[in-house]
């Protein structure tokens, strides 16, 4: 157990003292503890325990704010729900902010006031990071990304071998000796990124995207060192580490002189680079920074790839990754791509901006100590999938894929989980003349 001394407390409070932020100030003061957000959170719904009500997570942070940073809280803490940041409080914060929230933001949209609950949870995580209280499992994922360039610590040789193997697969499939998965090539239009789970566990998704690039006649490259789209620094609350990881990608795009950074199918990775990256680095990116979903939509609109959706006949449903849809605005774009590539798509209920998180967000897949909780809350997604009757679940996020695969197994759903690149690749009409 970590002991909260004065120095640690000061470091944590520094996060909240950043009072030149009107958004922070607003959300620290807005919750009225009506409790009406309870039913919007899958943790509360699955665990049936009041400690998981979103407002409770907000209150952990805001009660500290009131205690140390408001006059009324300093003078009369008991009257204003102001609480000490002590060992007990810090432990509760770890349990609920790291272990009881995926920062999916579902409750935010449904809050009666409009409190950005996940933003406050993130601030709470930053406070814990400042006190060295990040769960070791999550921290080791971040350390791996910083020390090796990817969060799974895959050695470069192993990665290069996998890519070469996938390139051979591509050549075979396309029956074209010129089909390529380029590595470390300069002056290409696109710099593409991967979730390290792809080379490690799902290499065929790399071939699927390579097939899309091949069909589009794209000029693209991967990096052999800095290809990792993920950024668990977004989740561990250590902004210096998040900045370092984002900078690795930024620098690599510059080194290779690419025009567009395309973020592979990863929800939080897309968020961390597309939306947070420029703020971490405190600069606007000189190059375009888009997701693979947007790129595929562009290809379809411009006629650069042709799809035959009758090649995807099975009943399919969509899992909306929170960081791409609710927190990334890609609701319509993603459906445009999927409906162009698949014939028989049915929505979950609820879906889109109201969709439930798969349960694997917020860095949960890296925190094995919360596995039991993670799979229990995944029951909500399992139920949603079951009700659609679909045989395939499509999602443009490898983190979600990982959680969905585990849910599939745990709840015996008997479905296939696919990324969008896989669905699009399956529907491609390849023009052999190109």
């Amino acid at each position, binding site marked *: 157990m970590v002991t909260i001394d004065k120095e640690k407390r000061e470091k944590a409070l520094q996060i909240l003292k950043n009072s*030149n*932020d*009107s*958004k922070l*100030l*607003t*959300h620290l*003061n*807005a*919750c*009225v*503890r*009506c*409790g*009406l*957000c*309870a*039913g*919007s959170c899958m943790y509360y719904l699955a665990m049936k325990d*009041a*400690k998981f*009500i979103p*407002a*409770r997570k907000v*209150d952990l942070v805001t009660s500290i704010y009131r205690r140390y940073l*408001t006059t*009324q809280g300093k003078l009369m803490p*008991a*009257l*204003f*729900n102001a609480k000490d940041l002590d060992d007990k409080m810090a432990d509760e914060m770890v349990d609920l902010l790291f272990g009881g929230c995926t920062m999916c933001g579902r409750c*935010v*949209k*449904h*809050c*009666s*006031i*409009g*409190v*950005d609950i996940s933003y406050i949870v993130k601030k709470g995580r930053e406070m814990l990071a400042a006190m060295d209280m990040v769960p070791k499992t999550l921290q080791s994922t971040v350390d791996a990304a910083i020390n090796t360039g990817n969060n799974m610590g895959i050695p470069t040789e192993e990665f290069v071998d996998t890519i070469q193997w996938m390139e051979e697969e591509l050549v075979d499939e396309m029956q074209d000796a010129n089909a390529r998965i380029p590595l470390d090539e300069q002056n290409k239009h696109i710099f593409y990124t991967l979730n390290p789970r792809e080379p490690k566990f799902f290499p065929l998704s790399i071939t699927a995207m390579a097939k899309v690039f091949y069909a589009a006649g794209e000029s693209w490259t991967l990096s052999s060192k800095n290809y990792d789209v993920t950024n668990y620094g977004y989740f561990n609350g250590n902004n210096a580490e998040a900045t370092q990881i984002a900078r690795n990608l930024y620098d690599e795009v510059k080194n290779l002189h690419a025009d567009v950074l395309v973020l592979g199918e990863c929800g939080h990775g897309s968020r961390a680079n*597309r*939306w*947070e*990256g*420029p*703020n971490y680095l*405190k*600069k*606007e*990116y000189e190059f375009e*920074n888009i997701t693979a979903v947007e790129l595929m939509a562009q290809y379809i609109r411009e006629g650069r790839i042709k799809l035959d959706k009758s090649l995807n006949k099975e009943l399919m449903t969509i899992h909306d990754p929170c960081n791409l*849809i*609710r*927190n*990334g*605005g*890609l*609701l*319509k774009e993603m459906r445009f791509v999927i409906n162009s590539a698949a014939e028989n798509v049915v929505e979950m209920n609820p879906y889109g*901006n109201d969709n439930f998180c798969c349960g694997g967000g917020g860095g949960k897949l890296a925190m094995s100590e919360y596995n039991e909780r993670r799979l229990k809350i995944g029951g909500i997604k399992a139920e949603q999938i079951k009700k659609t009757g679909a045989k395939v679940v499509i999602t443009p996020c490898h983190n979600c894929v990982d959680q969905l695969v585990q849910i599939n197994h745990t709840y015996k759903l008997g479905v296939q989980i696919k990324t969008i690149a896989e669905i699009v690749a399956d529907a491609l009409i390849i023009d052999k003349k190109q």
Partner: protein
Amino acid sequence: MIWYQWIAIIAFIICAIVLASDLVKLIKLGNPKDLSRKQGNVPAAIKYSFTGAMSPMAKESAYQHLPTYIGGLLYHMGTFLSLGLFIWFLINISLHAEMHVAIAIIFQIILWISALSGILILLKRIFKQELRSLSGADDYISNILTTLMQIATALFILNTSNEAFYFIVMALFFLWLPFGKTKHVLYFFAARYHLGYFYGWRGTWPQK
């Protein structure tokens, strides 16, 4: 003017100054400084945040809890009516105008329904274990003072001999308002604004 009227006026001024300075601070700090490339329409999303997104059909906090939602609406209606009436009563100290009986009756009805909503919301907080676990002194004090000031307003309309009670309750309410959770009278609007800004920047809102 009588001493309790002065106390209420001073409390009102303190409340206004604290809230105004909070508002000025928020305005001075301005919009979030976001260096990512904007994807949506921020003004449209802010507008949606205050309109479509507030519709009871858009929020689970409303459509899953309709009785509480309606109670809350009525309660807030009574609060704003009471605040408006307070200003009127202050002006009326020198005007000595009579309130029309029909208007007085309508106000009474609104205020008693509103106060009843406040009491029911308080009872829910006391008796619902989960809500109680979220609550602290601020939640009870804020509710009691707000409900009490509505009752005091209704009683004052009914009979001006309740004047001392009315002005003292109003003074207590104003002294609490900018410090307790009642300060959401300001932060509610700021939160809706920021939410609209956030979702608008990323193209999530206005929801299509």
